[in-house]
């Protein structure tokens, strides 16, 4: 079959096949969550699913975690660099996670990719990534400290498990039982994707499905072009401050966005890459830009590769925002969040009503690791904690939600305490944390843990020194912070230990307000005061 053979597909068939792609990726995601064992997947849903065309261009990504697009756009090109398509066969499954050789953005996001064959021809890829909460209690001076690097290699060869490969991977994990079961759930998800795409080809014909896939990418491109065209031409610049528990002095990130007709160029500037975990590889930068521009240009653009075509993204190699080997990358999402703030801050000058004030600017997280009292097994528990979402031109910001590059769920208290030797003492909105304004910024969260057994803990947060900014005279949101109970040894670069009975309180940033507070309505003020939000 010649993949480029022209097949005319009418816009209605394209829409119908597009709906099918969306249902397939959704179904893959549900199977992944429901069959998995680790709290990070089964309750927090830190995973994503997608379909790709043979060349590695996204056909459809399910609406899970925007950050994961970075791992997706990298994986297929890296597979193709190492393996010839001719040697691939049904039942091959590739596994990879490396940021430099595996197309990943950090090591815990393990990608499984399976080619879809129909009538002997490779027609697509079923791909998913799951954040395996493992590789905990590590250093972040360079990537060799961060966990096992997996280039794209076969985990299954023609349907046969490569046991040696699996054993090598599992021996390098702290909680191998969870890793194994999550990998099985990832397999189940891809298997569904493969079956569904084959059925789609049976039904509409391979050529039609492939042509519809290309048409959907063209469609996303047209929508992105239409969205960019609606932004006034010009050059918009913005700088922001980045801070993190790993560094003492804040860094400056900046962007210059040039809008010219239907195209947009984004050029980023940041300090040289550092011996810290918050460096970003280029694919992480790309997925961040695609997310941020889509929210402003047109949130309804289908999440496929076509939307990237009108965008040019530049950043100097070897900098924090475009790092090279061997920079550590585990905490890259913190920097990604600030990149979204940069883009929204710059575009606020062009289309202020379509952007929102700065959100929490963080993915505040707590990674606990220890030994289960009783069984002696290692345990790792990752929680990421939402914060304030920025005020909108005509509406208050959302309180206590995940913003921008992530959207994971919290772990219910009743699930958390059953699995780990921890007690959750409080989980609540932080009074007064949203920025003042005509529209109020969203409120941050406070989550308070008490250790019931000795454990190691890594904590991440941002806006510890700077504050989420407001728009058009709106006030700043409150920053993030940590409070430890008496006797806790000081944490170094976010790392430390807790003894039984010791308490850590994680406070996430609020968000900026929109418009002068003097314009806030009397009704809204009365509500703020009755509900003690300030």
């Amino acid at each position, binding site marked *: 079959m010649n993949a480029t053979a022209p097949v005319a597909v009418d816009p209605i068939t*394209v829409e119908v096949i597009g709906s099918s792609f969306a249902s397939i990726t959704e179904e893959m995601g549900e199977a992944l969550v429901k069959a998995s064992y680790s709290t990070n997947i089964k309750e927090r849903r830190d995973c994503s699913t997608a379909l790709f065309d043979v060349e590695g261009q996204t056909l459809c990504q399910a609406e899970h975690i925007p950050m994961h697009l970075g791992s997706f756009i990298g994986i297929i090109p890296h597979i193709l660099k190492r393996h010839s398509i001719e040697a691939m066969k049904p039942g091959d499954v590739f596994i990879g996670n490396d940021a430099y050789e595996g197309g990943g953005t950090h090591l815990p996001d393990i990608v499984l990719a399976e080619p879809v064959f129909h009538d002997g021809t490779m027609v697509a890829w079923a791909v998913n990534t799951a954040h395996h909460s493992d590789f905990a209690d590590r250093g972040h001076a360079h990537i060799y400290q961060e966990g096992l690097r997996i280039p794209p290699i076969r985990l299954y060869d023609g349907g046969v498990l490569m046991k040696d490969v699996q054993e090598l991977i599992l021996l390098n994990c702290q909680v191998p039982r969870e890793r194994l079961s999550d990998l099985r759930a990832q397999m189940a998800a891809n298997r569904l994707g493969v079956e569904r795409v084959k059925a789609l080809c049976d039904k509409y014909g391979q050529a039609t499905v492939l042509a519809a896939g290309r048409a959907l990418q063209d469609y996303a491109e*047209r929508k992105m072009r239409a*969205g960019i065209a609606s932004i006034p031409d010009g050059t918009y610049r913005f700088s922001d401050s980045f801070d993190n528990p790993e560094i003492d002095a804040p860094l400056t990130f900046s962007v210059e966005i040039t809008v010219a007709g239907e195209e947009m160029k984004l050029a980023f500037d940041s300090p040289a890459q550092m011996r810290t975990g918050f460096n970003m590889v280029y694919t992480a930068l790309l997925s961040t830009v695609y997310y941020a521009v889509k929210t402003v240009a047109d949130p309804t653009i289908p999440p496929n590769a076509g939307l990237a075509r009108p965008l040019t993204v530049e950043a100097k190699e070897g900098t924090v925002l475009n790092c090279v080997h061997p920079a550590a990358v585990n905490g890259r999402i913190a920097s990604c969040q600030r990149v979204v703030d940069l883009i929204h801050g710059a575009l606020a000058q062009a289309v202020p009503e379509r*952007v929102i004030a700065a959100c929490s600017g963080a993915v505040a997280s707590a990674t606990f690791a220890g030994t289960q009292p009783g069984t002696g097994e290692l345990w790792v528990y990752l929680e990421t904690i939402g914060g304030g979402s*920025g005020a909108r031109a005509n509406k208050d910001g959302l309180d206590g939600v995940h913003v921008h590059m992530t959207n*994971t769920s919290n772990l*219910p208290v009743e699930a958390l*305490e059953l699995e780990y030797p921890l007690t959750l003492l409080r989980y*609540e909105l932080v009074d007064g944390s949203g920025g003042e304004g005509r529209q109020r910024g969203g409120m941050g969260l406070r989550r*308070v843990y008490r250790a019931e057994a000795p454990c190691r803990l890594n904590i991440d947060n941002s806006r510890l020194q700077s504050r989420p900014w407001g728009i058009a005279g709106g006030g700043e949101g409150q920053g993030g912070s940590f409070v430890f109970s008496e006797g806790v040894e000081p944490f170094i670069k976010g790392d430390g230990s807790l003894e039984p009975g010791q308490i850590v309180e994680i406070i996430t940033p609020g968000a900026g307000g929109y418009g002068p507070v003097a314009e806030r309505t009397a009704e809204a003020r009365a509500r703020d005061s009755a509900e003690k939000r300030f």
Partner: protein
Amino acid sequence: MAWRIGIDSGGTFTDVCLFDDASGEVAVWKVPSTPDDPSRAIARGTQEGTERVGASASEVTYFGHGTTVGTNALIQHRGVKAGLITTDGFRDLLEIGRQKRPDLYDLQADKAPPLVTRDLRFGVKERVRHDGSVEIPLDEDGVREAARALKAAGVKAIAIGFLYGFVRPDHEQIAKRIVEKEFPEVFVCCSHEVAPEFREYERISTAAVNAYLGPVMQGYIRRLAERLKELGLKATPHLTQSNGGVIGFDMAARLPVRTVLSGPSTGVVAAQAIGAMTGIENLITFDMGGTSSDVALLRGGEAKSASDAIVHGYPIKAPMLDIHTVGAGGGSLAAIDSGGLLKVGPRSAGADPGPVCYGRGATEPAVTDANVVLQTLNPTHLLGGRMPIDQALSRQAIGRLADQLGLDLMATAQGIISVVTANMAKAIRVISVQRGHDPRDYALVAFGGAGPLHAARLARELEMKRIIVPRNPGIGCALGLLLTDLRANFATTRLAPLSEDLVPAMTEAFAALEEKAEHWFAEESVAPADRRLRRTADLRYQGQNYELAIDVPDGPIGPATITALGEGFAEAHQRLYGFVAEGETVQLVTYRVEAIGLVPKAQFRPQPDAGPASEHAIIGSREVWFPEAGGFVDCTIYDRDKLKAGNRIAGPAIIEQMDSTTVLLPGMTATVEPYLNLILETP
């Protein structure tokens, strides 16, 4: 004379279905709804409906009612001012939820507002641990102060929900007693009574929804009961729940959260009965109305049910039929988006102005306009001639879209149908392929005003070979009310590995649930011979957090029960996820008992076979657009009311009746079966 009456109260019409036990006669009646107080239309419908068949309300032996009062109060945020008493430190949980934002990319999207505002949520010192031990005893003074503050604030309902209330309910029980003492007139409910299950947010949210709706439902039920009494109704009235069964008015008033999907669930029950009549047990129901379509799956005659769902943005843990709703109906609007693709819905023309062809000023074409242009719908009038329409307006509106798409008028009209069909097919995939069922093994049951019009295309899209169109597709839900049983669900969560050691604990758990069920049977006056119990257990691999419900075989619990559960789980896991984790521990999570009180149901009677000839039912012909036949085809029009059992029709054909139009595509055949349901088949 012994009449059974089913009344479905919808947004526009209140449908009445009457059945005479003696003669087998079925009569239907519609009256306009009275949304400000639906009990008025119900009383009127009861009165007019019974008068029309020459009966009186006192001759009614059964009264079943489906309502949207709960759903509407939830959608329109017209519940009562409610308060929440919860564990100190967690009062914002109701608002934080699972901390996800409502839309990944749309920065303007909002979360559903919390049903209890922050100033009315009180944290009280207390703490139970996951093993049921008490770390901090309940601060009873704190509860008292909260109750007084809520009383002063003028709330009408209070939800009480503490962490681990499902493991150890006594803190909630003590708090409830204190609230009842301080504030006797308030509606109060606890999380362990409403949804005694794991995951605190979802459980407390369910209690909050219940409190929010409680007084609304109580008031409604009281008014309705009074009106029915005034009419002279002697039968005990029943109300449907989201699980497809009915309960008495008292329980409905205590647990209104169990009625939020009351309306669509009875449609599923009707489909189930029609399946039993026709001998077709694997069904997918398709109820298409003006703004949305509801779909559900029945396997072996049983509807799939779910133990939780997110309803209008609020998580609810309550037994409900697994009904999926999609914003695709006859009024769904067609438009071209900025990327040049044709989109249909979820925006809808609504009842006013309605589709363009109504001539009430609408300019954006709806699905109905496409049908008018294609002439699958009568191009001059609808509703059996009662409503004139203007096809020229539909043609102009769709012509404008056609120009933008670069397609011709007819291809665009057909395209609107294809896109809306794809949207509905996607909804059916959610309840079938996503749950491991192949729609090709199922028959489609089409009802609602627009269901029979679109069923043939939808079935073709999903490669389903058979469609059932009930005798009265427009009143499916009211009919279902005559066919449903009393139904209540009881559950308890007790985590334990599935092994033979579990036999005593399982025996005890089911015995306790069965005792509750028996108590309920007594309360509903169900005769012992009419009592049925169904036991299921929710299982998962230890480590997973989503369970699969597996049937527990009848009879005493023993080692064989454990084996059967293990095998049932492995089979279900393989079907859904494609693998079995050999050697891993299977964990039992929740025991469930469904109590069913059998109600004597309407017994429909088969009609004698009148032979295949159907010419007597022909009322004319018109040109109808069938792309598979190359364009307009002169198509015979049949009157559904004149069709007799055994009659056969070859497609293409159109079959009209007062409240619905059935499209038969070229190559399909339709047969009238003995109960006058139409069976459409693709050879």
